[in-house]
Structure formats: C-alpha cells, structure tokens
C-alpha cells in the first residue's frame, strides 16, 4: 500500500508523520514525501497513512540524534533516507547504527557530520550588527549555510544571547528571538542587507590585523576553515588582501629592525671556504646590504699563513667586489712588499663585508660601520679563519681589532703586541692604511703598520 506523508519540512513534524508509517512497516519506496510548501502537485497523491492501533516502535535516542542532523542535509532524498534507516533500526535494533557496512547508515552518518560542521560554522561566523529601533537595541545577522540548519543552530544563540533581541536571517529559513516571546521561525531571506558599522566593528578589525603574524602565511588553511562564501558578512575579511599584500613589506621592516646577520645564511662547519664566500655574497642580514653594489668576501690562498683583516670595503672595493683594491689597498701592498710579502701570499679580508657609506651629491662617503654591523657580520670572519687556520691574524684598525678580540680596545695600547683572538688565533693589531692616508702626519702610523706586518712575518718563519 502506498501512502503519502504530509508535514512541515523540519524534523519534529517529520517524526510525527513517520510514526504511523513505521508502525505499519511501510517501506521507504512506498511513501510519497509531501513537505508543506513544496511545489509538487497535490493531484494523484497517495492517501495519508491511516490511524493505526499498532504500537509505535520505540526508537533509541541515538537514532533521533542522528536523523535530526541527517535530515537537515540538502538533498532530494533528505526525508526518505532517515526513514530507511528508521526501518532498519525497527527491524534489527539500535546496534545497526554502528554498522558502517550498511550504505544507508554510512550515508546518513556522513550527512549528519556535514550538517554538524555547517551548524558549527554558523555558530562561529554569524555576526550580529547592532541596530536601534523604538524598543531599543536589536541585533541582526545574515548568514549563508549549505543546509536546512536554522532550527539546529538557533538554540545555541538563545542559550548564549538570551538577554538580546536578535534575528538570524539565512536563505534557508530565519529565526527571530526576543526575551519576551522566545523564538519565532520564519521563511528564508535571500539577500544580505548590510547594516552600518560602529567603532567596535572597527576595533575588531584592528584586533584581527594585530594578531596576524606576517612571517607565517597559510592561506589554504584559512580558506578551508573559513570558506569564502561567508566572507561577505565578516568585516575583518576585507583586510585579508591588504594584510597579505603588506606582509613582505612588514617582514622587510621587521628584518631591518631585527637584522639576522650572517647567521641566517652561514653554511655548516663542514662546508668549504667557497661556500662561505657564496654565503657572504648572498647575505641580506643587515641594513648595509641594501645600498651596497657588491658584498666583498676575502681573497687569497686557503694555505695562507697570514690573514689580514681590514675594516670594511671602500668605494673601489664595493664596485669591484674585491678587497683592498683602492688607495688604502695600494698602501697596504707597498707595506707588504716592504717586509718581503706578495699580495698572493696572504689572505685579505674585512671585518664587515658590505660598504657602509652615505651619499653626498654624487659621491659616496665612507662611514665607519657600527658595532652592531660588525657583530652581525662577525660569523663570516670566524668562518673564514676556521677554514684557513692561519699562523697569525693581523687586524688593521679598531673595527677589526674589536671584532676579533670581542671587546673594544685602545689601539695605541695594543699595537704590535701578541694577543689571542676569540676562537684562539694569534693576533697582531696594526693601524688601518686608510687612517694613514687621512692623517697629515702619518710617519708614526706607517712605522706601526710596518712593525705589525714584520712581527707577523717573523711568526710564520718561527713556526714553519
């Protein structure tokens, strides 16, 4: 016998409609589902189920919980699938609900899970906008769920906001709540009417922008958890494009405030000297890298017994990318020749690998590197020394001396003395050739440079 079931299209009405059909053991395919308000013609309709005195099968609570959610799923068979499962439960008992081997059970569970997620997202993403009418504050929201969940989702808002007058509007049904009259369900509202925003909406956007960490971007994760179809009603999402666009700039700013120095690119200890040189050329770890033309790594044989460390590249060195090739370099070469050394016998490098300067008219004027620059760059110098293992290191000028000793020193008090550098290398300090060039009376400094180089050469002979 074929029957029709006529009911309001929500779970409680469906449950009342199917009770007699279950008692009659009517199969799912023998029922015409006629929810009120559907467009189906009433002609040729099967008769409604007769009133029966057969006992209604008692159903476990677990079934109702599952069916209530599963029935909210938007599908042509949203009313018949839960009925089919109800028949299985009536025939075989509540434990069939655990048997995911049965297609209908599996499908109803899948639908219930999808609906739970949809309800959860409605609880999460509904945004109330404050409006004022004659009776006071009224909070209005519009949300677009995938399924018929208004009756599943509303009780949560009532429990939470029971002192507010509020409206939950969705294309698949609406609910209006007042503390006096409770919930009234109504028809769907197709379009979003956007209410005006107040200062707290603006503050919410401020909050959202402040907690985003530009160093980590996982927009796929964000989109999968917060689908874009909800973005229209969530004011903070209008910031996302801007936040993402600004992320590189914010990172660059934070990198400028928070320079990583050499350690960001430094190769492992086992890597060869050439890898250290490559890392120096790649380094953007401090503010000096930006304006410079070239980074200037050290130069010379890896077997050199003497390493000479200057302050930083100058104008010529920056242009060519090689150390000691400008006027100060020529002065140093003369001083080396005077103690019997050739450029090719020593390893030449600087404490700081980029040219610190300021532009004046069209000229680039040398600026002394700050202690921070030298500290950030120091790992490169130590990496070079660890590859070469020279007999002696000659530090020229105050920056090189401070970097190698790990403390500020008065140059005059250490010139020519045998010292120990951080990392254990033997160290001799001399004046920087650029200082000699700048000084009108430089004979004393020239003598001290010559003296330092002479002592260093003597050390290589005594240990050879």
């Amino acid at each position, binding site marked *: 016998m074929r029957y029709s079931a006529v009911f309001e299209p929500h779970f409680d009405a469906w449950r009342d409609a199917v009770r007699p059909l279950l008692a009659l053991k009517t199969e799912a395919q023998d029922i015409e589902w006629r929810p009120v308000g559907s467009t189906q013609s009433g002609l040729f309709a099967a008769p409604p189920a007769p009133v029966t005195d057969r006992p209604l099968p008692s159903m476990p609570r677990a079934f109702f919980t599952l069916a209530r959610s599963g029935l909210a799923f938007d599908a042509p068979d949203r009313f018949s699938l839960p009925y089919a499962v109800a028949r299985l439960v009536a025939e075989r008992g509540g434990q069939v609900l655990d048997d995911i081997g049965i297609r209908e059970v599996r499908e109803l569970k899948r639908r219930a899970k999808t609906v739970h997620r949809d309800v959860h997202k409605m609880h999460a993403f509904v945004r109330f906008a404050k409006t004022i009418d004659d009776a006071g504050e009224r909070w209005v929201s519009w949300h677009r769920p995938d399924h018929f969940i208004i009756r599943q989702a509303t009780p949560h808002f009532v429990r939470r906001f029971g002192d507010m007058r509020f409206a939950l509007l969705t294309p698949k049904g609406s609910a209006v709540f007042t503390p006096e009259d409770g919930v009234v369900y109504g028809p769907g509202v197709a379009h979003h009417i956007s209410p005006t925003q107040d200062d707290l909406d603006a503050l919410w956007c401020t909050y959202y922008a402040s*907690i985003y960490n530009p160093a980590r971007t*996982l927009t796929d994760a964000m989109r999968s958890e*917060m689908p874009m179809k909800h973005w229209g009603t969530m004011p903070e999402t209008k910031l996302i494009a801007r936040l993402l666009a600004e992320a590189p700039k914010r990172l660059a700013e934070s990198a400028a405030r928070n320079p990583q120095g050499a350690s960001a690119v430094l190769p492992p200890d086992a890597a060869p000297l050439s890898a250290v040189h490559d890392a120096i050329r790649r380094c953007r770890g401090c503010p000096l890298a930006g304006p410079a033309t070239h980074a200037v790594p050290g130069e010379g044989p890896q077997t050199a017994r003497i390493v000479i460390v200057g302050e930083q590249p100058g104008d010529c060195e920056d242009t060519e990318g090689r150390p000691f090739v400008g006027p100060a370099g020529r002065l140093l070469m003369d001083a080396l020749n005077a103690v019997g050394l050739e450029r090719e016998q020593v390893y030449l490098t600087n404490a700081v690998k980029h040219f610190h300067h300021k532009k004046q008219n069209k000229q680039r004027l040398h600026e002394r590197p700050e202690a921070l620059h030298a500290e950030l760059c120091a790992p490169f110098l130590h990496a070079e020394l660890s590859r070469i293992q020279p007999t002696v290191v000659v530090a020229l000028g105050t920056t090189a001396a401070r970097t190698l000793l790990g403390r500020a020193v008065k140059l005059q008090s250490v010139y020519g003395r045998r010292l120990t550098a951080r990392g254990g290398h033997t160290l001799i300090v001399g004046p920087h050739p650029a200082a000699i060039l700048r000084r009108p009376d430089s004979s004393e400094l020239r003598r001290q440079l010559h003296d330092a180089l002479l002592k260093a050469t003597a050390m290589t002979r005594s240990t050879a």
Partner: protein
Amino acid sequence: MELAQKLSILADAAKYDASCSSSGAKRTRPTDGFGNTTGMGICHSYTPDGRCVSLLKILFTNRCIFDCAYCVNRLSSNTPRASFTVAEVVRLTVGFYRRNTIEGLFLSSGIIKSADYTMEQLIEVARRLREEERFGGYIHLKAVAGASKEILARAAQVADRLSANIELPTQKDLDTLAPAKTIVETETTMDQLHNISQTEGPKKLMPAGQSTQMVVGATAASDASVLDTSNRLYTSHRLRRVYYTAYSPSSQPHAALPTKPVGLLREHRLYQADWLLRFYQFRVDEIVQPGQNLALDKDPKLAWALSNRAFFPVDLNRAPREALLRVPGLGTTNVQRVLSLRRQRTVTVDDLRHMRVSLKKTLVFLEIPGDRSAVRHLDIQSLEDRVKPRQLNLFATGQSALTGQV
C-alpha cells in the same frame, strides 16, 4: 593613547602565548546576563597564517619589571609600551562578544610592581565582567608565579582557566634565559591552584583547569626533557594542557638566543607525543630516549611501531583497546568505532576504508581475516619506506595544538 593603538600593541604583544582554546569548561548563562561556554571551542575567525581566532587575547600591559631573554616584553626590549584600563578591557570584551566574534577573554600581562599587584588588575577585569556585566563567557587569566594563595583563590572564583607558564623545561634553562624565574615557584603556584580547584563549594572553581606553556628551541634542552617535564605537570599538578611553542626570534632579539627559528615541525611532533602520553597510554621512555629529540620525518607512534615490530600484528577483532591504540593510523575515535562494530560482527578492511583510515600505513600492523599485508611486509627491511609519509603535511603543523590524533 587611542584605544585602537593600545589594542594594536597589546594584542601584538600577546600573540606569543600559544593557548587559544576556549574548550573544557561548561558554564550556563547567568539568568540576568549573557554569554555561556559550551565545553567545545569555537573559532570565530581565521587569520591569513591559518590560526584560529577564538578569544580576545591581549595583555593588560606590556610593561614589565623582568628581563627574560626570550620575551619580547622584557625590560630591556625597546618595544612600544601601552596599558589598558580595566574599563577598556571590559568594553572590548563585551562589545566583541555581543557581535559573536569571540568566545571570551584571555588576559595576560607583563609584571608591574609585584605578582600580586599585577593579578589584582586582571582579577578586577574579570570581576567586573562577571558581577557588573553579568558575563557568562569564557575567561582565561594568567596566573603570575609567586602570587599569594589568597589572590589565586580570588582569581579562581572568576576565571574558567588559569595558567602559570613554566616557560622552559629545566631550571638550568631558566637560569640562562630567565634568571628571575624558578621552576619551583611556578610549580608551587600550580600546586596551590590545583588545591583551590578541589575546594568543595556551591560552584566549580576554574572549571577549565590549568594550562601552561613551554618555549621549545630557545635552549639546547632535548625533547625528552621537555616531555619529562610535561609528564610531571600532568601527573603531579593535574594540568589540563601543556602548550609548546617553537621559539621564534621576536622582533627584539636578545644576544644570548639563537637567531634561526626552530621548525614548526618539532612543535608538531611534541604535540603528537603529548597526545600519546595523555590519551594513548604511552610512557615518555617509550617515545623518546633520554637526552634525545623526536624524529622529524615520522610521527612518534609510527616511530615506536617500527622499532617494536614484535608487538605486531595486532588482531583487529580480538586485541584489547590498549593494543589497538598502538597501531599507527588508528586514532581514539576509530578505535572506539572498531570496538562498537566488532560486538556485532567481524570488522573488515572495507570497514577501515569507510572510516577513512590510511590503509597503506595501518594494514601492515594488523591481523585481519583475508588480508596478508602484515604477513608480507611486517618483517621486511623496507617497511619504513612503505609506511612513512612521502610529503610532510605542513597544514597539520598549524592545527596540531587543537587535535593531536595520531
């Protein structure tokens, strides 16, 4: 200073606290008020870095009398400073909550004057929310280590959760980076909070319990010592959650700290190991050897299974729950499903497929009628390559604080 500017500074300063959860407490709406907590957290938004926004997470002030090396708000940092008033925090919390953008408030603070004085400010915010605004939403307050017992008891009256941060796994680590802090003092505070929460009374105090946070990778401490500390906190102080946060160089680094950020993957593996301790009945020494770190290329449960092959195959239809929980790829939910189903009939490979279990990873460790995966592959050399994931799921690393199912 404008409220928006304060909010910007004090929200930015609070983002280094990993805890975002609003779950674990149930609180019904006061009859004359608004707000409740449902017991399960709700993420009301997501930031472009994929993180959940559930609470208004801010500092009351980022001024601080301490100089802890790993902290962006330390005394010697030149970060911009701001302080809220009690009324401002109340207004923001109520305003955001009524718009349905948050589940509640997570209020922490730099230490001003003293531990007690700082906590007084936080308690006053919570008290006004509860008593004057009749707010029933979630409130998580920072418990400042060393605060007096009376102050802690008052905080427990108004908060759902309190957290005293352990910060680093051992006293040696604290001595290096946070010389003003001691493990003993923090654990004393935890102990007092636990006792307070057990007090009999008309209402349950701090229903969401205590949590804490450990910074990982700022010192050389191994994962083994991190997990030992967690285990102690779970067992002796009954902590609800330990959060791990991979050390990332803050915008104002300290010279004593490493400048390379520790991988999020290490943080992810610690969360997985933490889940094994709490829900899978593993012991720390089964997961990681003393002084060692967790493997990064495979999850800790798989790593255990690969080095304990004699334990397998596990009989899907007969083994007890504890044994099923040790099978890689079977999480607590699916183990429960298997147990319910096998009361009725034999559980098959198809059933596992319907549960969306990763068969490639799981079958070799199981004995199932008609399936020979275990017989064929369990004893071969290349088992590890067979079951190890080819690509590491980096999305998972962003989610691991929420669900650590392994």
